[in-house]
């Protein structure tokens, strides 16, 4: 089953520990955090698309999907032509000028092979980044929503989407 890094929206504290950890593992950070209007921040790394356009266009077949579903670059095949960067909707692949190849997130392939989490996920203090089986992660997310609904019902405040369906909370 495919594995991914999922971003927990609204949880990032913009500490950039993910960037710093990534830089220590890869020499240059392949994840980046963006602050928006001083009210929230979002970390962005390669989405490892199911139908990855970068793999499609790569003229030397340097990109492939590994067993976990990560889009991985084979440096010896890459010629640094930037085609992957051109088609990537997120602007993920960057040019590594000193090695004359592209550089992109590989979900910490070497760490995964040792059974460890990607570095950015390991350090993230706020758990804004989570890694795992996509299906399991989505179940976790659903569970959290259910918990929140139950808590607010118990406390008498009803979330708007339930209120619009006619639910009322216990009066205080």
């Amino acid at each position, binding site marked *: 089953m495919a594995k991914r890094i999922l971003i927990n929206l609204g*949880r990032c*504290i*913009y*500490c*950039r*520990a993910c*960037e*710093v*950890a990534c*830089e*220590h*593992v890869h020499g240059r950070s392949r994840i980046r955090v963006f602050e928006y209007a*001083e*009210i*929230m921040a979002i970390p962005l790394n390669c989405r490892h698309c199911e139908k990855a356009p970068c793999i499609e266009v790569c003229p030397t077949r340097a990109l492939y999907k590994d067993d976990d579903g990560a889009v991985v670059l084979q440096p010896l095949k890459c010629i640094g032509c930037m085609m992957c960067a051109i088609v990537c909707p997120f602007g993920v692949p960057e040019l590594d000028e000193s090695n004359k190849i592209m550089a992109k997130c590989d979900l910490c392939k070497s*760490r995964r092979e040792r059974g*460890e*989490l990607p*570095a950015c996920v*390991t*350090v*993230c*203090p*706020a*758990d804004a980044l989570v890694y795992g089986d996509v299906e399991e992660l989505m179940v976790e997310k659903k569970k*959290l929503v259910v*918990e*929140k609904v139950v*808590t*607010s019902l118990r*406390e008498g405040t009803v979330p708007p989407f339930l209120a619009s369906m006619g639910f009322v909370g216990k009066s205080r």
Partner: protein
Amino acid sequence: MSERIVPTVCPFCGFGCRLFVKSFNGVPVGIEYVRHDLPPNYGRLCPKGASAADFLRHPDRLTKPLKRVGEGEPRFREISWSEAIREIVEVFKKIRRDDPNAAGFLSSAKCTNEENYLMQKLARLFGTNNVDHCARLCHAPTVAGLLQTVGAGAQTNPFEDILKTRAIFVIGYNPAESHPVVMNYILRAKDAGAKLIVADPRRTRTTWFADYFLQFRPGTDVALLNGLAHVIVRDELYDREFVSKRTVGFEELRQALARYTPEYVEKVTGVPARLIEEVARVFATAGRGIIMWAMGLTQHTTGTDNVIAASNLMLLCGYIGKEGCGIYPMRGQNNVQGACDMGALANLLPGYRKVVDDAKRREVAKLWGVEDLPSEPGLTVVEMMHAAASGKLRAMYIMGENPAVSDPNLNHVYEALEKLEFLVVQDIFPTETARFADIILPAAAWAEKEGSFTSTERRVQWSFKACDPPGEAKPDWLILTIVGKELGLPGWREYSGPEDVLREINEVVPQYRGITPERLKKNLEGIFWPCPSPDHPGTKRLHVERFPTPDGKARLIPVEYRPPAELPDDEYPFILTTCRIVGMYHTNTMTGRIPSLVKRWIGPYAEINPSDAEKLGIRSGDRIVIETRRGRYECVAKVTNSVPPGIIAVPWHWGANVLTNDALDPVSKIPEYKVCACRVVKKG
């Protein structure tokens, strides 16, 4: 040839993260990022922890003892350890003969418990209580205030209790930047339904996650806290049973709170009365609540009053001594709690025994094999600088502190350090303070030695040696052992290692009696003090049955709002406050030498509200000069709504304390870093 991965305690904030340092043949190669089952961080790190190993082999590291040669522009030459020790001992011996109180010692919240214990023992056997450390600049009001109200100046509950609480009240504290991993606990508590209330003059990153945000004027903390307590008492939302059974002084407090109506408090603090009413109700009726504070609450001339007001609020709600409740004064240094426990304070001996208490003092003296110890409270950090400037203090021994950046009113500090006859600085880098030194001693950094550290939740953890120190650098405990011996101090003994020192601490500090080196090394989770015997599991929650006061009850103490020492006027129309940022740490001695941090958190800046910026014609990125009555500071403007109009906020890491006010809280002697008057001009 061997690779080792060794558990240490992170050298930065007081949260106490377990940090695994990887080394190869004794040379540090990096931090091992790994999820583990060790609290409090379970492998999570902030950017500073994630890059902590990078400064260990920085070319700036001090590797040999240095001696000043010539006057003026400091030039140093390398000398041998024996020559350095001889020079130090000669001068300090002479001062000891003349007047031991002419010497001052600064201990360090960056050093281990063992090293702090040795430093204060050295000072006291030398014959003076002039020993202090930077807790004076951060949580002295917490210690002074909480000692009066609940009888112990420490965090009452473990971090795991945050997950069990229903309401979190954060005042003058920005965990998202100063203790990022704490946010993990706060956000998980929120997932489980807890409400987050944040009170701060700045719209910090922590407020992004707040259910309620009380943006109050700097320095009006007492008014705000009294206002909340007023509503809680007026509407009878307080915990009757707790207040009557476990506290004294309710009637006096009720009378004093009468005038802090929400309307009056709105006028003083700027927080809408309606919001004060609502927050008071939410917090008091939550059932379980915690309060967290840090420098925003303490660094005021009313610091102790602020702490007492916060304590009153918690006692009224009955949120002490229970699971999922508690007082969390968040410590900023990895061992500031331990340094206080060890008595590296001018007025307190190990285990919080007051130096003026004859019986308690002689108890320590007896354990050290001497008749008595100095009984006069010594000079505190800022007082030492005043005494040095006036010539009363002739020599100082500074271990792992950088007052030339961290103290308020820096120009005065420079003058004081210049005036000293003799200054010893023992550190890992040539700090700004070391420029004034006569002798500089190269010390080993955290990963290059062993010892115990006490985190802000009273968790004592052993940090193992991961790699070798560079050059001739030595661990602080070893240097102090040698200096004490060469000085020929009565009662001094030589120690074979940190374990040896900790065994003596087990004898002297009652709270640490059962925290033996053997237990700590076996138990990586650490042990919570108080731990009265070797078979005691440690105490995670304080005040469960009774308070450590003579009658076992807590005190409700009325405190009145007093304005800060310096307020804006026509000449200096803005309020200046200081803050910190997540990627830099204190005086930047370490973080300023970590490339992955320096490139992300570039140079000094100041925050200014768009309306003020427009009036002054300032845009983001412009160079500006901030001036106060004490100094001027140049930096880059950052126009932002995170500060309200009339307030300038400046991260202090790059030396902004040339601006701040050294007016002191009369009780705890903490300077008022958080409020002073300033003006801003665009440079150009």
